[in-house]
């Protein structure tokens, strides 16, 4: 089955600034895909190219097999998007905004609008002018716009921006339920690594306009798994660990070694140490967080 | 004998001619008599003027006349532009105090007419007067104004104009004015043709003098 999002050699140059440099990316149906990177990495530019706001300098971006720039309407027919802070007509009500924006390019019923508003918890304030909305309410209105009409792909740029912790949790739960219940594909750009770790099934990390790491969250974290090993004597333990194929020491602190196993199992590590007469007092698996992975990747880039 | 015969023949030949040649004053008197039966009239007037500097399209007004020379115009559509000149009332008005000299008889607008030369009135002009009806059918003034008149018999008695066509040639007029007075800077409205159509005459029905009093402007 063809990927829902396919970016191939995607490049964007703004005069002397190369914002996106040969980016390759695919997103499959049903995934909740996280797009991570520092400020200025090219996330927003990539997202804008995905929805046709910016024309690629080179390469192409396809949604549902359609080139976004050449077949804009067909490509975005089943897509809902919220790019950066959602902007609405302040002098119109929330409901009117949804009606006008959604009906530009498609048709929706009053019931569908109400459903979307209800989903994001704005039904009671639907007839109030947007200028009376808080930042969080506008954010939710943007999400409502993105999910009206049962799209198959939703692109969200910082969806929890401006929300309180309760609101953040609600949005996270919403995204998970949309993905699970409606088999929605979600492409999510966020700075909140903890949030991405909870929601996303697959991620890409981008820096300086290029993808530097991509994969499922579980695989990436597993690859980053380490073991805290308490063993003595320390010197002998260190020497023994270094002698094990596939094992490396990330850090050492007071007889505790942070060991990374590229191959082999912790049981084999333990047996190896014990066979060499080294006393192992503790062998604790430590799963890395996404933040640790991310920071490590950024360090490697420097 | 022969000489006497020649004199008699000559007198016989000339006499009819001398006896049939009208005098200008007599023609004017006949015109005055023709109009004398009209004490007052009211008529609808439609004015159309076409020129390079003016364009009036079918302007409707009502004209009131009462002897000897009272004229009043009412605008039917808010405003009326009344052409200067003797278009209403006594057609002899502009010929008053003029000396008329009979020139010849000729046909004009299908009518046998006396041709008069008028000097001393408002401006020297040539006038064609219908022999039978004693009404002026055309005028050609040296002030640049040429007019042609059509008539109808109103109430079976009065010959009154139904249409007057005026041809204003201001260059001619301006030239003559400036010849008389080099400082004359009179307006230049360009060559202009005006048509006045009279209808719905009500003759000798009585008109109150108050109509002719000028109303104060608000």
């Amino acid at each position, binding site marked *: 089955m063809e990927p829902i999002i396919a970016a191939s050699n995607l490049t964007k140059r703004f005069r002397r600034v190369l914002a996106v440099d040969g980016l390759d990316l695919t997103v499959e149906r049903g995934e909740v895909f996280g797009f991570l990177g520092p400020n200025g990495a090219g996330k927003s530019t990539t997202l804008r190219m995905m929805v046709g*706001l910016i024309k690629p300098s080179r390469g192409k971006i396809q949604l549902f097999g359609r080139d976004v720039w050449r077949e804009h309407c067909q490509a975005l027919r089943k897509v809902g998007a919220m790019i950066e802070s959602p902007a609405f007509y302040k002098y119109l009500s929330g409901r009117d905004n949804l009606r006008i924006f959604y009906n530009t390019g498609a048709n929706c019923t009053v019931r569908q609008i109400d459903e979307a508003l209800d989903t994001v918890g704005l039904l009671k304030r639907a007839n109030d002018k947007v200028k009376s909305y808080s930042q969080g309410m506008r954010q939710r209105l943007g999400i409502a716009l993105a999910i009206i009409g049962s799209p198959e792909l939703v692109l969200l740029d910082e969806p929890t921006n401006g929300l309180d912790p309760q609101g953040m949790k609600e949005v996270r739960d919403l995204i998970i339920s949309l993905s699970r219940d409606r088999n929605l594909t979600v492409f999510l750009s966020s700075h909140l690594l903890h949030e991405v770790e909870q929601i996303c099934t697959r991620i890409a990390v981008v820096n300086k306009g290029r993808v530097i790491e991509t994969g499922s969250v579980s695989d990436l974290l597993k690859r980053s798994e380490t073991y805290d090993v308490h063993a003595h004597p320390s010197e002998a333990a260190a020497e023994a660990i270094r002698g094990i194929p596939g094992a490396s020491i990330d850090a050492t602190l007071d007889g505790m070694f942070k060991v990374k196993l590229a191959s082999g199992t912790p049981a084999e590590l333990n047996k190896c140490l014990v066979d060499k007469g080294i006393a192992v007092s503790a062998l604790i698996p430590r799963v890395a967080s996404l933040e640790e992975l991310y920071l490590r990747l950024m360090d490697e880039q420097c | 004998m022969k000489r006497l015969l020649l004199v008699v023949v000559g007198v016989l030949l000339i006499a009819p001619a001398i006896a049939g040649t009208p005098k200008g004053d007599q023609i004017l008197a006949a015109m005055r008599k023709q109009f004398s039966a009209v004490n007052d009239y009211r008529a609808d007037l439609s004015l159309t003027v076409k020129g390079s500097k003016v*364009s009036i*399209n079918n302007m409707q007004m009502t004209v009131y006349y009462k002897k000897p020379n009272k004229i009043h*115009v009412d605008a039917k*559509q808010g405003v*009326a532009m009344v052409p*200067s000149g003797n278009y209403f009332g006594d057609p002899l008005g502009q010929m008053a105090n003029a000396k008329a000299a009979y020139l010849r008889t000729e046909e004009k607008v299908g009518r046998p007419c006396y041709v008069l030369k008028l000097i001393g009135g408002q401006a020297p002009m040539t006038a064609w007067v219908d022999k039978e009806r004693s009404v002026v059918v055309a005028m050609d003034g040296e002030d640049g104004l040429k007019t042609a008149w059509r008539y109808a018999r109103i109430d079976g008695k009065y010959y009154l104009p139904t249409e007057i066509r005026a041809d204003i040639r201001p260059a001619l007029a301006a030239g003559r004015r400036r010849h008389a007075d080099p400082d004359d800077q009179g307006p230049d409205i360009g060559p202009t043709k005006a048509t006045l159509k009279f209808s719905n005459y009500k003759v000798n029905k009585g008109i109150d003098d108050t109509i002719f009093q000028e109303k104060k402007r608000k």
Partner: protein
Amino acid sequence: MLRQIRFELYKMYRKPRTYLGYGCCLFINICVMLGLRYGHMEQISTDAMHGSSFGLVGSPVNAEFMAWMVTGSTIGSMIMLMGLPFYVCIVSGEIFAGEVAEGTLRTVLVRPVNRASFFTAKFISTVLYAATLPLFLCVTAFLIGLVFFGHGGLMATGTLEHPVLAWYPESAALWRLGLSCLLIWAGATTVGMVALLISGWLNNSLGALGAATMVLFAMSVIGAIPWFKPISPYLFSTHLYIGQKAFLDPIPWAEIWSGLRCLGVYSLGLFLVALAIFRRKDVLA
């Protein structure tokens, strides 16, 4: 497309600044009415007729006259140069740049909407707004004149190029006023297109308004300089006053068609350039 136009008009008429132009038209009409009512127009008219082989009876001041004053007279030409186009530019300069500034352009363009039809809907909305202004000006002048002065035929003067004193019966006056509104619409649309183009290029509504006004003034000045006379027929500012030609007799259709052609070429050309810029534009705001 119809739905998009409806949305654009809905958004346009929800903004208070859209009503500035109508307010100005109303204000002008009230001033004109006061001037006609208390300004002894009958005496002025009579004096103007002096020595012209005609005398004046009655008053030319009526609803038709008042409507002509604001569309076909010298006052009308001032309104056409400084008034109507300015208010059209307020709307046309803002209709695009305003969306960019607010960020709503971004929100719209992530929808499956064709950029060309989206922009064309804005163009058509601007054109429709430009039509309502001279119509509002003329109709309110007529109605106010009807209340205070009644109705009748129209006495009008011509233009500087064709000075003429004309009078038309009421029926002819009404269709000439309608024609004048149509012609004024053409001129106002062209100026509005200048603002639309500049707003699409600069993404700034105030800049678009200022630049469009400046272009209009510059063209008017250039057209008035004798040395530039050969190009004067090709400047759109030269044809902004074709509304006055509706009151000449006979109507100089050849001149009007020539003027409309020039304005049409400018309007279409400006629209196409603006559209081309917009279609390739990166939306960064």
